[in-house]
C-alpha cells in the first residue's frame, strides 16, 4: 500500500471534470439569468400596456358619466377630491397643481366595466382605473375657474385618469405600475 501512496501519477480526469462542471454551471446560470431578465422585462411591459389601456377605459367611462350628468356641472361647484383619490394623485400630472377643484371621481376594476367570465374576469379584475374630472387648468396649473375654448363659449374640462395593474381597492402608488393619462373635453349641445 505504501507504494501506491507514493505514486506520482495522479489522475487529471477529476479536476478536468470539475472545471468543466463549474464553467457549464456558470454558463447555465447566465442563460437562466438572461431569460428571466427578459421574461421580467416583458411582463413589466405587458403590465404597463395593460395599465395604459385601463387608463383609456377610465377616460371613456368618465366621458359617458359626463354626458349623463351634464346638469351637475352647472348646479354644483367643484370640490376637493384629495381624500377620495386612492392612487390617481394630482402630482402625476405636471400641468395640474392640485385636485382641489374636481367635479367627480370614481375608480373601478376592469371586470366591473367589461362583462366577462372565468379566467378572463379574473385577469380583468387585476387591472383598474381611477379618474377625476376638473376644469382644465391655466398655464400655471390653477383650475379654480372654468376656462373657455378659444373662440367659443364652451368650457374646457380635463379628465385625469390613471390605470393600475392591481384591483381598484388594492392598488397603491408604492407597489404598482400607474399610467396617468389626461383628456381635454368640452360639452357641446
Amino acid at each position, binding site marked *: 500500500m505504501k507504494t501506491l501512496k507514493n505514486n506520482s501519477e495522479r489522475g487529471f480526469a477529476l479536476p478536468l471534470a470539475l472545471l468543466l462542471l463549474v464553467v457549464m454551471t456558470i454558463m*447555465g446560470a447566465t442563460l437562466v439569468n438572461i431569460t428571466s431578465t427578459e421574461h421580467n422585462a416583458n411582463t413589466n411591459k405587458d403590465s404597463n400596456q395593460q395599465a395604459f389601456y385601463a387608463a383609456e377605459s377610465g377616460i371613456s367611462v368618465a366621458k359617458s358619466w359626463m*354626458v349623463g350628468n351634464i346638469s351637475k356641472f352647472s348646479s354644483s361647484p367643484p370640490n376637493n377630491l384629495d381624500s377620495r383619490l386612492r392612487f390617481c394623485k394630482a402630482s402625476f400630472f405636471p400641468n395640474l397643481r392640485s385636485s382641489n377643484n374636481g367635479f367627480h371621481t370614481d375608480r373601478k376594476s376592469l371586470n366591473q366595466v367589461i362583462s366577462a367570465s372565468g379566467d378572463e374576469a379574473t385577469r380583468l379584475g387585476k387591472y383598474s382605473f381611477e379618474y377625476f374630472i376638473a376644469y382644465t387648468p391655466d398655464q400655471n396649473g390653477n383650475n379654480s375657474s372654468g376656462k373657455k375654448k378659444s373662440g367659443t363659449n364652451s368650457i374646457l374640462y380635463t379628465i385625469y385618469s390613471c390605470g393600475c395593474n392591481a384591483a381598484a381597492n388594492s392598488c397603491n402608488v408604492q407597489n404598482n405600475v400607474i399610467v396617468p*393619462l*389626461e383628456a381635454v373635453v368640452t*360639452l357641446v349641445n
Partner: protein
Amino acid sequence: MKNKNLGFTLAEVLVSIVIGIMSIAAAFSAYNYFNKSYASVSQKAEVSKSARDALSLIARDLRNAGHIDPNFITSSWEGIRSQTEAEKRMIGVLQKYYGSNGTGGRYGQADQLEIWYTISPYERKEVTYFILKYRDGSDNFFLQRQIRIFGKNTKTFNDVIVSHVEDFQVILKDKDGNVLVPVCTFIWSRCGPTEISQGSNQQQGSMLKGQANQKLVHTADVYLTVRSPKEIYPKARRTKIKNGENSHGSDITIPADKYYRETFFVSVHTRNLAKHVAISEQTGTSIGESSSYNK
C-alpha cells in the same frame, strides 16, 4: 505478490483511456452546445430588448402626436405662432426616405417619421425617427431619434435608439383602416413632390393633401426589423422582409447570411389626431374636442 499494486495491465490502461476520451468528448460537446446556445440566446435577447425599448418610445410619441396644449403660449417662432400654424405640424411620414448618410437604410426602403406635440404651455417638441449609417466605416445602420424643442430656447438632442436596424416602416391609416398617403407637415421640402412610391421611383402626392391628411390619422402601424450584432446561425440562410401592405411597405430580399433577424410591430392609436365625438342619445349632448396627452 509484493509488486501486485505497482502497475496496471495493458487491458486496464486501454479501457481507462477509452473511458477517459469518451467522458472528455462528452464534456467538450456539452460545453460547445452551451456556448452556442449562450451566444444565440444573448444575441436574441439583445435584439428583442433594444427593439422593445425603441417601440415603446415610438408608441409614446405617436400617442402624443398632434397634442396642442389648450394654454399654449404663442411665440414668434412660426411653428407656435398660432393654433393654425401649430396644426400644420403634427405628423408626417416620408416614404422611402432615401438620401445621403444611409437614410433609407441598407436596402433604401426605410421611412422617416416626424411627430410634433406640445410638452408644456411654452414648448413644442419635434421628434424625428430615421435611419442613419455609422460614420466609423462599418456597414451598420441605426435608428436615430432626433428631438428639437421649440420655445423660449431651442434645444436639439440626438439619440441612437436601436443599432443594427434593417428596416423601419410607418404606415398611417384613417379610422376606416385605409392607408393615408401622403401625410406630411408644413415643412414642404419634406412633403408631396419629394415623396417616392416604392419601386416606381416616381414622385407622388400633393403637399396640401398631405397636410390635410394629418388630421385623419387614426392608427399608425410601425415595423422595425433588427439584426443580431453577431452571426449566430451555423449555416447561411436567405431572408425576405415584407413589412406592411404592398406599395407603402417594404419588400426586401437579403442574400444568404448567418445573422438572426426579427421584425417587431406595434399598432398605435394616435389619440390626438383623428378626433371622435361621444354622443349621448338621451340628451343629444356630445363631448367634443377630445385632445389628450399621454405622459
